């Protein structure tokens, strides 16, 4: 059994209106010194069997093409077997 976590974030140069709204709210609620907030997505994928070989390559590819939009997002994938 493998557990794959894919974190997807807007590229740093892309505007993140959600993150900005959260930053504003945190400040209004009294949290001081908030320099930046970015909001991303997290996918937790449970797989049968270990993730290796072709399947691992496909998973990586889909993380970059399906789970994230390469035009505006970066992703990071971690696997626990």
């Amino acid at each position, binding site marked *: 059994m493998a557990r794959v976590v894919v974190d997807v974030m807007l590229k740093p140069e892309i505007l993140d*209106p*959600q993150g900005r*709204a*959260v930053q*504003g*709210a945190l400040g*209004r*609620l009294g949290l001081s010194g908030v320099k930046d907030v970015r*909001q991303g997505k997290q996918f937790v994928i449970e797989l049968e069997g270990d993730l290796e070989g072709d399947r691992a390559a496909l998973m990586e590819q889909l993380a970059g093409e399906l789970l994230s939009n390469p035009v505006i997002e970066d992703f990071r994938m971690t696997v626990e077997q």
Partner: protein
Amino acid sequence: MRIGVVTFPGTLDDQDASRAVRVAGAEAVTLWHGDDDLKSVDAVVLPGGFSYGDYLRCGAISRFAPVMRALVDAANGGLPVLGICNGFQILCESHLLPGALTRNDSLHFVCRDQRLRIEDTTSMWTRDYAPGQEIVIPLKNGEGCFVANETTLDELEGEGRVIARYVDVNPNGSRRDIAGIRNARGNVVGLMPHPEHAVEPLTGPSTDGLGFFTSVLNSLVSAS
């Protein structure tokens, strides 16, 4: 009667809610999110829209607005409050109503003329309807799927607190076809579809929505 209509940054249906209040025969009073003054209104409508862009979660940021602090106290004291769409989401986020509204199961925003059955006519906002009456009013949301745990759902059903249910089509995957609920006391109501867009034959699919606004006026009259 004076009914307050709250404007948050990103509220969109405030003008419509005010119009509905006037069509029903009351005075609409503008309330601003940044003031904690309810201007001694007799009831409050939290209108639809995308307050704070619906960023983070719908209603999550508005919940902390100064006006909400005053409103939560007043609602707990019996002030009639109707939350429509985004207003319903804010009421849930504020824990004035149980459950939460999540992404539509279709994953699309949906705008349609929706048939509803009025299930409870004891609330301050539904007393002018007949029990079981079917109405058609606009529905428009991206996150209108009502969810709560089974215990809460059973409680809502058992206490007759589901005020309206979707008929024909469940447009967003709401548990048990729930379109609207009320609190135990019956003064706070949350509704996903939009009665304020169905008060004039010219611009709505019907005038079926007017009953929500006349209901609260009649409730207030009979209470005083």
